[in-house]
Every structure is written in C-alpha cells, then in structure tokens.
C-alpha cells in the first residue's frame, strides 16, 4: 500500500493521540498487559489497512474504540487466553488498599461488563454512544451497566458512584 509522508504523519498523530484510550479499553477486556498489547497492535494495524474515512476526532475515537472492542472479543474467543493478572503485577507497584480492592473486584467481572464500566465512567460516553461503539442496543448497555454496578456492590459492599 502506497502511503505518502502526509498520511504517515497523520497516522502517527492518530496513534499517539489515541494510544491511551485504545490500550485502556483493551486492558478493561483482558485485564493483562500482554494481551492488551496484542490487541493494541491489531487495532492500529487495522486502522492502517482500512484507512477509514473519518469525519471528526469524535468519529475517529469512536471508530478506534469499536475496533478495539471487536479485536478484544475475538481475542477472548480464541483458545490462546492468558489469565487476568492484578494491576499490581502490571503496574509493578503496591496499590493503595482501595485500588487493590477495586482491581480484585473488576477481575471477577466478565469482560463485557468491565468494558461498559470503562466506557461509561472513564471515557464518559453516554449509553447510546456506547451502544454504537459496541454494536448493541442502548437497553443492552443499560442492563450491563446496572448488572456490573450490582455485582461490584455485592463484592465491595458499597455503590460504584
């Protein structure tokens, strides 16, 4: 594929701008660094290959996160699964007690619940926007959010607010 200098510069800008968002969503699914890295590489490889026509930064981010979710789901469906690891092992540091508890609880959640929690609370998307990213109905997203909060409350004995 022939790519000129301008395309390459734009691609580099996109990768650097959205690296954190893509990586964090991937991590929310797989909860380990190694798989998150695989998914990260796959997402930007697809971006380069497909060269999608994206109208705005908002659209670009949503597109990348949608591809991240698809790649993460494919990855989880494959036989080559790694175990989730604690954030302490990932971060290489001892976490404060509160973060340790929350991390342990998140590891108990199923991946698609973690993803919805992440997109809603960290990325700040509305349920309708999450529905578009994850190709689900808004009612499905609301159900997942409610269920994820319920499960976290059971484990943490406090509301996730």
């Amino acid at each position, binding site marked *: 594929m022939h790519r000129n200098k301008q395309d390459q510069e734009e691609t580099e800008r996109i990768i*650097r701008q959205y690296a954190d968002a893509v*990586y*964090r969503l991937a991590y929310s699914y797989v909860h380990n660094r190694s798989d998150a890295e695989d998914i990260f*590489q796959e997402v*930007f490889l697809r971006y380069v290959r497909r060269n999608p026509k994206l109208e705005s930064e908002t659209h670009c981010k949503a597109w990348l996160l949608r591809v991240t979710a698809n790649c993460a789901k*494919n990855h989880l*469906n494959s036989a080559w699964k790694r175990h989730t690891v604690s954030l302490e092992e990932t971060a290489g540091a001892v976490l404060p007690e509160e973060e340790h508890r929350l991390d342990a609880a998140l590891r108990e959640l199923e991946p698609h619940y973690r993803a919805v929690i992440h997109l809603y609370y960290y990325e700040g998307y509305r349920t309708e926007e999450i529905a*578009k990213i994850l190709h689900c109905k808004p009612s499905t997203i609301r159900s997942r959010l409610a269920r994820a909060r319920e499960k*976290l409350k059971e484990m943490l004995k406090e509301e*996730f607010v």
Partner: protein
Amino acid sequence: MMKETYLKMQERIQPDAALITAAVESAAKPKRRPILKYTGIAAAAACLVMVGSVPVLAANVPAFYHVLYKISPQTAELFKPVEMTCESNGIRMEVGAIYFRENTVEVYVTMQDLEADRLNMGENIVSSFRLMVPSLSEYSQSSIASCNYTGYDTEHKTLTMLLEIEVLHGELTPGDEVIFSLDHVYGEEIHWEGELDMVDLQSAVANAEFCENEELQVYALFENPEWEAYREKTQFIMLKPSAKTPTPAESVAFTGAGYRDGLLHMQMHFEELDDLNTGTVSLLKADGTRIEPLAGMYGCEDKSKIHDLTSQYTDYLFDISEEELLDCRLYGDFRKHSDNVAGDWTVTFTLPERTE
C-alpha cells in the same frame, strides 16, 4: 468513592512508549505480523477466513468443524457443529457452530450471497435480528444478545457473524430451542451531527399545539436515569406536528417544540426507518454546555401498525425553563445506514451439551 478510585487506577494503565513506537513504525512500513507474538489473534482470524473459504452448503457443515479443528483443536472442542440453513433474497444463512457454557451461548452464523456481492459492507455492518428462547418466555428481559461482524470472505462472498447470548434470568439447558431471525443487514453508517440553526425555537414554542385527540399515538419510550423523578407527573401526549423543517441529516426534520406538564418537548420526524435512521437532539447553551433529554416518546398515527412503520415522530423531553431556552440552540446527532439488504431468514436450533 469507587468511581474516583477507578479513574485514578486508569492513570496507571498506559501503553509503553516502546509499544507506541512499534505501532508507529509498523504503520510506516506495514509488514506481516510476527506469527509467534500474535498467534492467538492470527489463528482466530485465519480460522474465520478458512470458514469462509469452504463452500457454505448444508452438506459441508461438518467441513466447517473439521477446518476449525485443523487450525485450533482447543477452539474446535469448544464449538459443536449444527446443520441449520435457510435462504432468502438470494442469500443463504447458515448456523455454523455453537459454543454453550454456563448460561452463555456463542454461535457462528454465515451469510453467503448466491447472486451478487451485496454483503461486502465492511466491518461496521449492523444486523437487525430477533431472538426467541421459548424456555425462557416466563421471564421478562431474560437475556441480552449481540450479533457482530467477525469476517468477510471475498472469494465466496460470505459474511461471518458471531451471535452471543447471555441469559440473565432463568437457565438454559441442553435441548432448549433457540429461534434466530434476521431481516436486515445494514451497511456503512452515515453520521451527521451539529447545530440545527435552521430551527427557530422561540417561534416553534409560541405556536405549539399538542395532540389532544391522539393524532399521534405513543408506542414506545426511551428513558435516561434522570427520568425517574418525572415519570409520574407526565402524560404521554405528543406535540401535534407542524410543517417539517428539513435538517442537513438525510430524512430527518424538525416538526415542533412546546411545553406541557412543565417539560419542553422537542419533536423530530424520522423517515426511512428501514435504514435504521435514528438520532437524538440536545440543547447547546452559550457557554458550550449541553443539556441532554430526560426521555423520548416515539409516536405514529396508528400504533397497531408499528411493525410496518417507515417513519415516526419522536418527542424529546427536557427540563428547562422558557427563560433558559432563550440562551440555547438545538443540536442534533443523527445516524442511518446505507447499502441495506433485506430478507427473511429464520433458523431454529437446539442447544447441545454444555462445554465444560
């Protein structure tokens, strides 16, 4: 607060600088992915391509399974082959394989175009499907399901999707029937968002009338969490549509605004519903903050015909005073799909034994 803790935790989760650099360098010179590092993803992708390469005929469903087995015995062990196929509008749909564990079912579904090449729509396709699990009929909202694109085989014009079903209430057992129906596959999304500066909100509010004689019948509602406090005081009566003011979004028009029961109704008209024409409006204040609707009412002239609707009205409800409204502009966010393929595909299959 747990949410604040979560936000703090995310700051620790970042890609290494080396990973980002590697991605940038790969983008500059796309090369083959190292087989060893990406074995998991590459094998799953190869598996999907191989599936598409096998002629999708009922007699070859076992071939699907054997192909899967050759690539990944572990993955093949998880999926059980079934033989379910139907054809409509020159497109054959086939249920390829099922993975049933705990209360979750994953099903690979393929669609092969036997007459043309209509399904090559990119990975952003959306399907309009219905799912019935008769054994769970006593539970309302008993399951959630999604059907997502996983690959396209250009040689055999075959689309592969993964149907995932998660049961929330009740329990699935081997032998339970699942009825999966699909009536549309939608292509690329067309998105428009921006200020609707062609709308004169003040004039619309001044001339508002409501449907006192059910000219429009409310047949559905969407609610945001904040709606709870308003529900009981609201009557489900919609604005009487005024002349359409077209918007830049195709097949979307503004048809009125007005106050009732202390809430502002903002009405939009959507045509071409078969193209999944949807959207929302919000109010943009001068300081840039946005006010989202609390809820929305969907209405039509005759709700006995909602399954054949090609257009509808939606009243978006806001809690905002007339004085505050003076400071606001209307903002729209609309989407629809192109390259739609319609058909009538239905398969019924039974769940195999669970995979441990």
